[in-house]
C-alpha cells in the first residue's frame, strides 16, 4: 500500500515507533487512513442501500407484517372483544346478554364508519356467513332499542332533544369550546373549521359508564364521518338502551348535581316500569345466525391484534376450539399447490440441466470463434422479452397452432386427435424450460471453460474409457456449475407468475398465481401475504445456499 511506502521513508522516533510524514505514529496514521477509506466506501454504498431499503426491503417487511396483522377486529369491535374475554367458549352455550349488547354497539359504530362489512369479510374468511350477518344486522341496528327511546321520550320529551344529551354527557370545557366554535362559525361560516371533537364529562362517565362511553362514541362518529354535530342529532336508540342499562344497574344518582340531574333521577325512578328489552333477542330476530355458538367461538379466536390465522390457512389448517386442525379434505389446496410448485420447479430444473449440459459442454470445447457465434443463440432468448417468448409458445402449442399443424401435415396425428399441449402442466413445463434454459447454460459454460481439456486426455491416456473419463474426471469438476445453474433456475421458477398464468390452465398454475388471485380478486390480502411469506422463506433459504456454494459476488451475466 502506498501509505506504507511513505511510512518506510519517514523518520523513526526515539522510542522506535515509526512515524508518518506528519509526525504521528505510523500505526495510528494508518488506522486513521483506513477508517477514512472505510467511511468513504460506506458513504458510496449508503445512498443505494437506503434506496433499496425503502423501495424494496420495506415493502417486503410490510407484507410480512400484513400476514399476521389482525387490527381490524379489535379496532372495530373493541367492546365485543372485551366482553368475549369473560365468556367461556368451551361451555357450548351462547355468550351472555352483555356480549350481544357490546356487539350491537360496535356494529352500529362500524356501520357509521363503513367498516362493518370489512370486519365481516375478515371474519368470513374464518367462518362462512359472518359477512352477510354483519351486513344484514348493520341495516337494522338503527331500530334496535326503539321501544326504550319511545319510553324515555314518553316520560319527558326533553330526552328526545339533542341538547339534553350534549349538556348531560359533554365535558364542561368541551361545551365551552363548542359554543365558541359555534359563534365563530356564525361569523365566518365554513372557515371556522371542524367542530371540536366531543369529550365526555369524567364525572358522568363514572356515574353512567356505558352511556357516557357509547354516547361519546356516537358523537365522535357522526362528527368525523358525516360532518354532523351532536348538538343537532338525537342519539341512536341503542344509546337509550345504554342509559337504561346504567340506570337499572343501580347507578347512585343521589349526590349527582350536574345538568339535568332531576331529569335523570326521574328516569331512574321510572326505568323499572319500562318494557323489558333484550338486544340478544332482537339480534336473534334479525338473523338466527347470531345463535350460532361456533361463530362466536370464531370471533373470540380471532380477536387478537395479531393472528396466525392466515398462516394456518396458507397451510390448509384452521383453528378449532380443540386446537389446530387440518381443513376438510375437499378444501385443501395450498399444500398441494406448494407441492406442485416444488415438483414442477424440480422438473423444470432437471429439464434445463439435461438440455443445458451438452450445450454448455459444446460451447466450452469449441474454438472461441465458433463458440461465440453459438453463444448468441443462447443469449438472444435471454435478452428477449419474457412475454414475447410466452406468446411464441402460446402460438406454437395451441391445438390449432403451428406444432399441431405440422404434426397433422406430416401425418403423425390425425386432424381430430390434435395434441393438447397448452393450458396444462405440459405447456408450463415446455415454456418455462425454454425461458430458463439460458440461466442454466451460462453458469455451466463459465465453469466448464475453466476445466482444462488436458484432464480428459490425461484420463484417457491412462486407459479410461470415454465414459469413465467423463464421469470420474470431467463431471465432478463441473458440479459447481451445475449447483449454481440449478439453484438459480430453481429460485427463478418457484416464483414464476406470468408464464403459468398464460399457458398453465388449471393444472399448470403455481402458488404465485394464487397469491395474485388473493391480492386482486378475492381481496384476502392477509392470506396472500402469508402465502408470499412462506414462498419468500423458501427462496431465502435457497439464496443463502447459493451464496454459500457460489458466492453472491460470483454471479455473472452474459
Amino acid at each position, binding site marked *: 500500500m502506498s501509505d506504507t511506502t511513505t511510512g518506510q521513508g519517514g523518520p523513526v522516533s526515539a522510542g522506535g515507533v515509526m512515524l508518518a510524514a506528519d509526525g504521528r505514529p505510523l500505526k495510528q496514521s494508518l488506522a486513521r487512513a483506513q477508517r477514512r477509506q472505510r467511511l468513504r466506501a460506506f458513504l458510496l454504498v449508503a445512498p443505494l442501500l437506503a434506496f433499496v431499503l425503502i423501495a424494496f426491503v420495506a415493502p417486503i417487511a410490510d407484507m410480512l407484517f400484513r400476514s399476521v396483522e389482525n387490527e381490524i377486529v379489535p379496532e372495530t369491535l373493541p367492546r365485543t372483544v372485551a366482553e368475549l374475554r369473560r365468556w367461556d367458549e368451551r361451555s357450548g352455550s351462547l355468550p351472555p346478554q352483555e356480549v350481544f349488547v357490546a356487539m350491537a354497539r360496535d356494529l352500529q359504530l362500524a356501520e357509521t364508519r363503513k367498516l362493518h362489512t370489512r370486519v365481516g369479510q375478515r371474519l368470513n374468511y374464518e367462518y362462512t356467513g359472518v359477512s352477510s350477518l354483519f351486513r344484514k344486522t348493520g341495516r337494522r341496528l338503527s331500530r334496535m332499542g326503539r321501544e326504550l327511546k319511545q319510553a324515555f321520550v314518553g316520560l319527558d320529551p326533553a330526552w328526545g332533544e339533542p341538547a339534553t344529551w350534549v349538556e348531560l354527557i359533554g365535558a364542561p370545557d368541551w361545551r365551552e369550546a363548542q359554543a365558541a366554535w359555534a359563534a365563530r362559525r356564525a361569523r365566518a361560516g365554513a372557515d371556522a373549521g371542524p367542530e371540536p371533537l366531543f369529550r365526555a364529562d369524567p364525572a358522568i362517565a363514572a356515574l353512567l359508564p356505558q352511556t357516557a362511553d357509547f354516547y361519546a362514541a356516537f358523537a365522535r362518529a357522526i362528527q368525523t364521518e358525516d360532518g354532523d354535530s351532536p348538538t343537532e342529532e338525537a342519539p341512536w336508540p341503542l344509546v337509550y338502551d345504554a342509559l337504561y342499562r346504567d340506570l337499572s344497574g343501580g347507578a347512585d344518582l343521589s349526590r349527582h348535581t350536574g345538568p339535568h340531574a332531576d331529569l335523570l333521577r326521574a328516569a331512574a325512578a321510572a326505568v323499572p316500569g319500562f318494557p323489558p328489552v333484550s338486544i340478544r333477542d332482537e339480534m336473534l330476530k334479525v338473523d338466527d345466525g347470531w345463535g350460532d355458538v361456533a361463530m362466536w367461538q370464531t370471533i373470540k379466536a380471532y380477536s387478537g391484534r395479531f393472528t396466525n390465522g392466515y398462516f394456518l390457512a396458507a397451510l390448509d389448517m384452521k383453528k378449532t376450539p380443540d386446537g389446530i386442525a387440518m381443513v376438510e379434505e375437499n378444501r385443501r389446496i395450498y399444500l398441494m399447490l406448494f407441492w406442485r410448485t416444488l415438483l414442477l420447479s424440480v422438473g423444470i430444473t432437471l429439464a434445463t440441466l439435461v438440455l443445458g449440459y451438452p450445450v454448455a459442454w459444446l460451447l466450452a470445447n469449441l474454438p472461441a470463434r465458433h463458440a461465440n457465434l453459438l453463444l448468441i443463440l443462447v443469449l438472444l432468448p435471454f435478452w428477449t422479452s419474457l412475454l414475447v417468448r410466452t406468446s411464441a409458445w402460446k402460438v406454437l402449442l395451441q391445438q390449432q397452432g403451428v406444432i399441431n399443424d405440422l404434426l397433422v401435415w406430416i401425418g403423425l396425428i390425425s386432424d381430430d386427435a390434435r395434441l393438447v399441449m397448452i393450458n396444462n402442466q405440459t405447456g408450463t413445463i415446455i415454456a418455462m424450460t425454454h425461458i430458463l434454459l*439460458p440461466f442454466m447454460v451460462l453458469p455451466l459454460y463459465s465453469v466448464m471453460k475453466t476445466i482444462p481439456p488436458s484432464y480428459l486426455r490425461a484420463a484417457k491416456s491412462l486407459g479410461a474409457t470415454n465414459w469413465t473419463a467423463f464421469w470420474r474426471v470431467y463431471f465432478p469438476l463441473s458440479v459447481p456449475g451445475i449447483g449454481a445453474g440449478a439453484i438459480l433456475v430453481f429460485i427463478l421458477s418457484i416464483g414464476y407468475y406470468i408464464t403459468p398464468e398464460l399457458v398453465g390452465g388449471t393444472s399448470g398454475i403455481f402458488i404465485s398465481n394464487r397469491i395474485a388471485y388473493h391480492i386482486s380478486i378475492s381481496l384476502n390480502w392477509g392470506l396472500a*401475504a402469508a402465502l408470499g411469506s412462506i*414462498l419468500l422463506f423458501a427462496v431465502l433459504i435457497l439464496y443463502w445456499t447459493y451464496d454459500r456454494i457460489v458466492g453472491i459476488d460470483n454471479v455473472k451475466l452474459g
Partner: protein
Amino acid sequence: MSLPAYATPLQRIWHYGFRVICGLIFFFLIAPIIVIIPLSFNAEDFFTFTPGMLALDPDAYSLKHYRDFFGNPDWQQALRNSITIAPVATLLSVGFGTLAAIGLSDSNMPFRRTIMAVLISPMIVPLIISAAGMYFFYSRIGLQGTYWGVVLAHAALGIPFVIITVTATLVGFDRSLTRAAASLGAGPITTFFRVQMPLILPGVISGALFAFITSFDEVVVVLFVGSAGQKTLPWQMFIGLREQISPTILAVATVLVCVAIALLVVVELLRRRSERLRGMSPS
C-alpha cells in the same frame, strides 16, 4: 473437438450424434423466437402458416399487424409509457448502483457480504412477492398507481444487474491508477470521471442495458404498482395474451426481438472492448 482419425465407428456415431442433439437443443432455444417473425407478416388473423404463406404467395403476407401497432392509440400510449419509464428507472439504478459498486469493491467496506446480499435480493426474490409487497407498501405511502412508484420499483429491480456488471469490471480495475491520478494532483471527482469512469464504462453501460431491459420487459410489478396511466408495452401484451391473442401481439413481439438483438450486439461489443482494455483475450 475434431474427431481423431483413429476414432472407432461408435465414437464417430457418438461424435456426430452429440452434435445433432446439440443442434436440436439450439433449435429449441431459437426456433420459437424466429417462428413468430414470419407469422407477424400474416395477412390473415391466424396464428399459423396459411397455405398461401407456405407457397410464398406475396398476397399472403402483409404489414397490417404493424400498421395496427403503429396506428393504434392503445399500443402507442403503451410504447410511450415504456419509453418514459425505463430510461428514468435505468438512470436511477445506474447512478446509485455504480457508486455503490465502487464502494463495495473497496476491501475496506464493512459488512460487504451482507450488504451485497441485500442489494442483489431484488433479483432473487420472486417478482410476485416484490409486487405484492410494493403494492401494499406503496399504497400506504401514496405511490401506488403513480409514475414515480413504477419508476422506483423498476429502479430497485434493475439495481442487482448494475451491481453485478460494474463489480465485475472493477475486479480487473487497477487501483494504482487512481492513486497515480491523485498523486498527480487530481481531485477525487476528476479522478472518478477522467480515470475510473472510462475504464469501468463498459461495465456501467452493460449494467445500464440490463437495467433498461429489466424495466422495459417487466410486467408483474407494473401490473400491481401501476395504473392505467403507466400501462407499459409488456402490460398491454399481457392483457392481449390473457384475453385474446390478436396478431398485433406478434408484430410487437417481432419489434421487441429486434430490440433484443440490438441490445445483445451492444453488450457483446462492450464486453470485447472491456476485455481488450483489461488486456484479456477476447473470449
